[in-house]
């Protein structure tokens, strides 16, 4: 029987706001 494609893995995404926070903290960390 035709091989059924494997279900794709759902990648969890941070929200825009969380990305903003991550970005800000990265900028603060980097000298």
């Amino acid at each position, binding site marked *: 029987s035709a091989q059924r494609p494997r279900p*794709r893995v759902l990648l969890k995404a941070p929200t825009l706001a969380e990305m903003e926070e991550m970005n800000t903290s990265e900028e603060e960390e980097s000298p």
Partner: protein
Amino acid sequence: RQVTVQRKMRILTASTVPHRSNSCHLLLSLPLDLKPQMLSGAVPCLPAYILYMCIRHADYTNDDLKVHSLLTSTINGIKKVLKKHNDDFEMTSFWLSNTCRLLHCLKQYSGDEGFMTQNTAKQNEHCLKNFDLTEYRQVLSDLSIQIYQQLIKIAEGMLQPMIVSAMLENESIQGLSGVKPTGYRKRSSSMADGDNSYCLEAIIRQMNAFHTVMCDQGLDPEIVLQVFKQLFYMINAVTLNNLLLRKDVCSWSTGMQLRYNISQLEEWLRGRNLHQSGAVQTMEPLIQAAQLLQLKKKTQEDAEAICSLSTSLSTQQIVKILNLYTPLNEFEERVTVAFIRTIQAQLQERNDPQQLLLDAKHMFPVVFPFNPSSLTMDSIHIPACLNLEFLKEV
């Protein structure tokens, strides 16, 4: 053409994957400070297609970390560029086009049947294999809303100074000036530095410029329609609010002027095939105010005509315009208090909103209907001027 690419957003380090004749992966680092003009000859939304191919490569290699880093750095990179260019219509429109196109690609090539109905067999080969990016699609949709709102804010900021003088003060119909009401004055701000007044042509020129930029950059037609619906609403609100606050423009001749200006704007919309945007409908209050200025205001029948025609104006607005109405000359009678009482009596069962002025800052909710592309990934050519020497076809 020598170009300086100010900033590279390194997305992927170079890595090799087995050559696959029917798949087109590109490794790249995308300069997000790209000048839109640099891509004027290329396929619209080229950055979006390149980004998708990069994501597809990471998916193909089943590398979830790379997909996360790709999408996160892309989204953060776009936000950075937009923050830096928060008054640049062209750059904002450019990244709205590309963000929406990337969103459409993530749907079109998601593997979800519902998004593949218009795909060719070749396009179906370019679908993602390992990851479901539904949550990232939501983030890109939220980002698109933010970019759209920035675009509207920029466009409104450019149009705002033109509206009152172009719609209410400038005599687009020559010869009407002789019939200005007594006490008519040009607004101080439009006279402040001499000729700082605008004619309707200035608004139309600006609309042309907006439309040309958005079309050249491949912005979805559905979104272009929403942009102009929003901008026409603002023209309607700013103009009507001035009419409701200024006695010197509440006259028969201004009514005539307004109807002419509105017809010119409608003609422009039709000429650009934008009349189905709903932009004209958003101007209905202003259209009816212009009619009201020109209708007779004496008898019971006149009152009935005004009430039946002014369905998009509130009672407050109708009464305010009648109170402000200034006869052209001594031959025209002023609107009597009794006539206004008649109007109020006829409208009393209406439960109108109480506020007099329109909210010029009102934003219609924006939607991004799915808009699949007919392009196939391996037909995409990357112009050398992009300096993307990392590109590898694998």
